[in-house]
């Protein structure tokens, strides 16, 4: 009995410590964002003399609003592009038997190459096409680059739908395109929502392509803008923390509302 209680206490302690560890950096960002300039590097966790100045200060010091809008536009656009590429491909491979084995293998295999491999060639391609330093250019590149992830996530969602429904539709004279749009996509809606959220977050957080292919305030995404903030000679850490948190709010809100879908999506894709 004593041993059992001890085990419970130990486990509760371990879980609390873990929760603290995963929450700590975010909590510290929040705290620093309320610290006046002279207190930022005091080594204390909580602000000694809290101030609100950093929040408007962050917007005044940089084009923060524009960075966030750029990020949202690019990440939504890229998620849309990824889905438009992936959905017909998965349907074609799984249900219509197009592409055989090579299509999935090549697609998933392409994920192994780190993005730096494609960075230099894509720079020349975007410059040649006049898409360098544009929202569309970045969305296109990120959208294509995330196709393997979407392919991996969507395939089991499609496999889980009983094929009989589609066969019935085909008997009624529906074309494959009609079946995909009117029957399969609605049935996969929860899985597709999870996939779309994951794709959007992936693009929203991406840094390497974004920093290489955008170089004006009109196109820079949030991670790029924040990394420049850092390069300034006089770094105002309070403002930097406030700016970082402002950029986190959209992702965390999405995460909060789509939590269930997100966990399902990640877990579903990984384990089959």
């Amino acid at each position: 009995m004593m041993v059992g209680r001890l085990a419970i206490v130990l486990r509760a302690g371990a879980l609390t410590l873990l929760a603290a560890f995963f929450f700590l950096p975010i909590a510290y960002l929040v705290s620093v964002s309320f610290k006046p300039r002279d207190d930022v590097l005091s080594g204390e966790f909580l602000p000694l003399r809290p101030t609100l100045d950093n929040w408007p200060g962050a917007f005044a010091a940089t084009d923060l609003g524009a960075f966030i809008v750029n990020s949202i536009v690019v990440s939504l656009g890229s998620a849309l592009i990824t889905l438009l590429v992936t959905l017909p491909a998965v349907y074609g491979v799984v249900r219509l038997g197009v592409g055989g084995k090579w299509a999935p293998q090549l697609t998933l295999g392409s994920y192994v190459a780190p993005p730096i491999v494609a960075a230099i060639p894509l720079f020349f391609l975007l410059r040649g096409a006049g898409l360098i330093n544009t929202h569309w250019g970045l969305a296109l590149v990120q959208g294509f680059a995330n196709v393997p992830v979407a392919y991996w996530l969507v395939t089991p969602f499609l496999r889980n739908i009983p094929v009989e429904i589609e066969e019935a539709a085909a008997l009624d004279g529906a074309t494959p395109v009609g079946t995909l749009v009117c029957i399969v996509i609605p049935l996969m809606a929860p899985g597709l929502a999870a996939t779309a959220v994951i794709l959007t977050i992936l693009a929203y957080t991406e840094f390497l392509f974004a920093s290489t292919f955008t170089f004006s305030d009109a196109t820079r995404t949030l991670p790029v803008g924040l990394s420049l903030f850092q390069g300034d000679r006089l770094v105002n850490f309070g403002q930097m923390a406030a700016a970082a948190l402002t950029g986190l709010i959209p992702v965390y809100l999405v995460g909060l509302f789509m939590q269930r879908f997100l966990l399902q999506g990640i877990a579903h894709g990984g384990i089959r």
Partner: protein
Amino acid sequence: MTLAATVRQPLPALTGAGSAVRHLRRALWLAPLGLSLLVVLVYPLVLLIGLAMTSSTLGRPFNRFVGLDQIVAGLLDPVFQAAVFKSVAFGFVASALQLAAGFGIALLLTEWVRAGRLLLTLVLLPLMTPPVIAGIAWKLILAPAGGLLNGQLMQWGLIEAPISFLGTPGLAWLSILAADFWQWTPFVVILSFAALMGIPPEMREASLLDGATPLQHLVHVTLPLVAAPLASIFLLKLIIAFKLFDLVHVLTFGGPGFDTTNASFWIWRSAFERFDVGRAAAATIVYAAVLGLVTLPVVHLCRRLEARR
């Protein structure tokens, strides 16, 4: 008449053409995927080979043919050799640590499902945090003058003078490992949790009835059952760890000296700071080949475990 109808009722004389059209229509399903693979896979590889064999800058590519000179130079460059080694070592060390910790946490969560749900939500936070922001947060924690960690360590009397975590060789890598651990362990937790939830609960009851201790149950029942998914999680995590770039950029910018310069960062600086695209392309080919070589055994392991299931 629509194309579909034409194809469905071919005139006898046109059967050959009809089947070709049908073939083409089926291939259309994969056309967007083909375009995407062409842009992010085939074209980059072809162009990289071209750039690697010519003296090229960002402004003027394909200046002069140099053959294999740049690839040989890349293979012999000690800084680049070290950078490739660091990328590979980081990948294996970070993934192994995160797999062990993430699986352990997932085990704790399965024992306590209700608290587990709450923690799963919390664990999503690092995963959704852009790496640049994670880097900023960790930079504030690890700052030498008045960062949170130094402040606390000094208050507790554990150290006399502040430590420059990001400016000391060795410690700088540990700092990157810590930030990466924070960011990616949750991914392992969620996947391991799902794998563990896939084990039928009767298994546990059966082995407890047989008088197995929790440790015996873990080693002889649970681990063999989740070995295949765990290997896949490790592979996935390894691939992600080989992409490490943002945390290096934000936390150390490859320093102190070249201490935390890994292959991705070395290539990026060569191409986009020194504009020596030819050399960077040659290095990229070398790096990609090395990654292929070191990933292959892990892919093999996954296949074997999957086949045994």
